[in-house]
């Protein structure tokens, strides 16, 4: 195994240059001795070339979107256009400080103002905050807004949020973080909300409902209007988890169809890079009656230009980020939206849906698919046939896909489908790459009959073989023991 950066260290080696210090004040005069560090932090001593080789060596061991298809359901690994990167590096953005005089960041503020406007239009909402820096923080912001609405109306008895059993884990976790109780709603035989069950859950204490639409099964919730009535009748609000909004661009405006709050995952829907786990951005849109509760500031415009608007400070839920959110991520989404326009966004969703349905059509004879109807941007297959016949499970199939140069789908989620494989090809994949992936999946189905042992052994060709994550917990090793 390759060495860590710490093992490459050689005393006295340097990987940086700095101008000579032209101010001579002894450190002892300015930092009291009792506050000073006794020995230097044992960071590596390496050259720039050492650093480049080390991280490039590591980079070769990653899967990434330019290497191959990344069919992680609900994660939406679409291609990230390179123009985003060029523009994000313009000095007027990258080197702008959040407390610069507003007249010196008018361009940056205009990007935010226009993005607020475009996201409002896309979602059919009245206004959008760009501040939340991740989908989960968007959820938190949205639920805080719901809480603020109830507080303002004196709905102090409302203490529960209802979440479907197909929801992402962040939904119930968010409710707990805000201080709400969570009730879980069952899915019906068609993979939709079980309305009869829902009616037994909703009462005067219900504060809201979180619904991912399309759901994590890749199905559009057909009963939105009825659900909306049930909740609004008890003055509860409906939150749409926008993780799968990339299926609905220009097709459905959630804010005009009964949803009160929505979060966007800009890194999914609007193609900003995932960066190995962030940074993303999770703006939140709300209907008119909730606008007063949005975090401060939002960006507004008057005769003299764009400005950070703290005008609704008295009713706002406050702030969820030190400054104004992940600006550099917002900027990339802005470029994407401006380049696609209304037609392009609609086209992106259409192709995402077509690509998913095409893959489903190619795989449905080889893998069990519980909900065999036209899907939206993703669908959930499972390995129940393979498991029953050959003892091959979803993990085996996922690992074998790695051997064939593809990333695995999202596995074992949603929890309501045993051995789930949630497949989302995204619109940026071509027919050729979809066919290559389908061929690989079909080959694996064949291999599971002929040579199940091979699948238990997989992966065979990756930088390391199957990784023991149980050991990683049992013998916790979170940091390298630096020796010198």
């Amino acid at each position, binding site marked *: 195994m390759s060495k860590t950066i710490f093992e490459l260290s050689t005393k006295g080696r340097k990987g940086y240059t700095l101008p000579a210090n*032209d*101010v001579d004040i002894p450190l002892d005069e300015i930092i009291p001795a009792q506050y000073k*560090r006794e020995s230097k932090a044992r960071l590596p001593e390496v050259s720039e070339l050492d650093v480049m080789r080390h991280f490039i060596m590591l980079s070769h061991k990653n899967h990434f979107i330019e290497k191959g298809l990344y069919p*992680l359901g609900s994660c939406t690994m679409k291609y990230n256009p390179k123009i985003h990167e060029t523009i994000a590096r313009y000095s007027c953005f990258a080197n702008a400080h959040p407390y610069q005089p507003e007249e010196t960041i008018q361009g940056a503020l205009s990007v935010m103002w226009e993005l607020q406007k475009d996201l409002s239009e896309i979602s059919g909402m009245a206004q959008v905050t760009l501040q939340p820096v991740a989908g*989960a923080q968007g959820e938190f912001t949205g639920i805080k807004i719901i809480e603020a609405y109830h507080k303002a109306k004196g709905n102090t008895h409302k203490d529960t949020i209802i979440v479907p059993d197909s929801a992402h884990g962040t939904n119930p976790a*968010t409710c707990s973080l805000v201080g709400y109780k969570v009730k879980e709603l069952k899915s019906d035989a068609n993979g939709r909300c079980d309305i009869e069950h829902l009616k037994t859950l909703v009462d005067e204490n219900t504060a809201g409902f979180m619904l991912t639409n399309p759901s994590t099964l890749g199905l559009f919730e057909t009963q939105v209007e009825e659900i909306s009535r049930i909740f609004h009748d008890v003055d509860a609000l409906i939150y749409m988890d926008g993780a799968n909004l990339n299926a609905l661009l220009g097709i459905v405006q959630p804010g005009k169809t009964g949803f009160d709050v929505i979060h966007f995952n800009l890194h999914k829907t609007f193609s900003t890079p995932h960066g190995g786990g962030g940074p993303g951005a999770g703006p939140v849109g709300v209907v008119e009656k909730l606008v007063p509760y949005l975090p401060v500031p939002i960006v507004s415009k008057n005769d003299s230009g764009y400005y950070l608007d703290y005008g609704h400070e008295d009713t706002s839920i406050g702030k969820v980020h030190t400054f104004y*959110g992940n*600006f550099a991520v917002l900027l990339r989404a802005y470029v994407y*939206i401006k*380049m696609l326009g209304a037609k392009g966004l609609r086209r992106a969703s259409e192709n995402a849906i077509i690509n998913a349905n095409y893959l489903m059509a190619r795989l449905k004879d080889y893998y069990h698919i519980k909900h065999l109807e036209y899907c939206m941007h993703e669908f959930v297959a499972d390995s129940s046939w393979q498991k029953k016949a050959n003892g091959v499970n979803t993990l085996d199939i996922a690992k074998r896909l790695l051997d064939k140069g593809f990333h695995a789908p999202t596995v074992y989620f949603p929890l309501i489908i045993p051995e789930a494989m949630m497949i989302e090809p995204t619109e940026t994949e071509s027919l050729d790459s979809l066919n290559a992936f389908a061929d690989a999946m079909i080959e694996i189905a064949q291999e599971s009959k002929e040579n199940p042992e091979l699948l238990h052994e997989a992966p065979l060709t990756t930088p390391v073989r199957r990784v023991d994550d149980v050991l990683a917990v049992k013998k916790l090793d979170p940091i390298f023991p630096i020796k010198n």
Partner: protein
Amino acid sequence: MPYISNTPEERRAMLEKIGVTDFDQLITAIPPQMRLEGLLDMDEPLSELEITRRIQKQTCGDVCTQAVNSFLGAGVYDHFIPAAVDAIISRPEFHTAYTPYQAEVSQGTLPFIYEYQTMICELTGMEIANASMYDAASAIAEAILMAVRKNRLTKAILPATLHPEYLRVIRIYTEGLGIELLTAPTKDGLIDLDALEAMMDDTVGSVVLQTPNFWGNIEDGEAIGRLVRKNEKALYIVCASPISLAILKAPAAYGADIVVGEGQALGNNMNVGGPLFGFFATKLDMARQMPGRIVGGTLDKEGRRAYALTLQAREQHIRRAKATSNICSNQSLCTLAACVYMSLMGREGMVEVATQSAQKAHYLAREIAGVKGFTLAYPDAPFFNEFVINTPIPAAEVISRLLPQGIYAGVDMARWGNDNQLMLAVTEKKSKADLDALVKALQEVRDV
């Protein structure tokens, strides 16, 4: 159409394979009355050239910190970033990878997080760090929540010397959970130790310290640690500037239980204030109460060294409503920048950056204190690379008078209620000439 590969012919062939003739047949699950008629109301689509020109036009009046002599700080700092940092983080291998859920094809991302965690622990003196939080503010908030999980005591003491915007975020994260936030008052720019001592009792669950504090002053972590220890159960949460830790005592040395901080200064651009990243480190015996992702070393099935996400049973995708936090995506790529930055600067470079920043800040403070009408707001408090001055006229006026001279004079403290105060940050990027230019400009302000 940008970024769509399939041609109209391929699209038709695919629809045929699916068994429909028209796209609309695929979305019959969407009730017709819910569908948008016509197109969204948006600008016409732009080509790469057009969007580039449009943005250049929109921003041509903007003036970034590199085009002027900037002394802005207050949570985001303009330290030098070696070119190799961007060369690494812009590699698609890191840039367009997802969260490392499939460990076998993530042995690039996982080890850098492991190395990053190690560096954070080395700076802070702690035993385990997570893969990052959103920013220092949310990291402090999560640390307070973690303390409550640990000791079930719902009272947290925050210092009046804490960044006011952090306080706002902490408040929103804690208010619904029955957590009581108390404020330890300030005296001469530092926490009032006597007042803090009087506040400490058995019901206090955590005490937060920010050092250097919001005004740049270095707090007495040792003395405060002794006060926190008066309640054995209380956890000591320290929010530290990572650059300062190259020369200042690691918080573990004065008894910190959880150490967090704003990581932007480590190799990340300022980007109008985001993305930032919060680092989060603690002791091993509290590992299972931590929020966020953690990477651990392990073995593959052939016994080779490998890395994996670990202790995932804490997290929302497993534990759902009972998770330690709702965090999913964090600020991973920013921690890669930090990891590469700390590798390049290394043991000596980090010390040099911290030392130069402190020396230059002190030179500037001394010079400004010599300008008639300007005084240091906290002349007796030790500080690192940031300090507050009292201005003879409202700070907003100082700022606007210096603006045409190409100087961003600092952060106007009017934002937080002090009209005649300006806060200035200095990094190693400043030359003596830059500092002298500011002093000269301030003298002229006085002369007007």
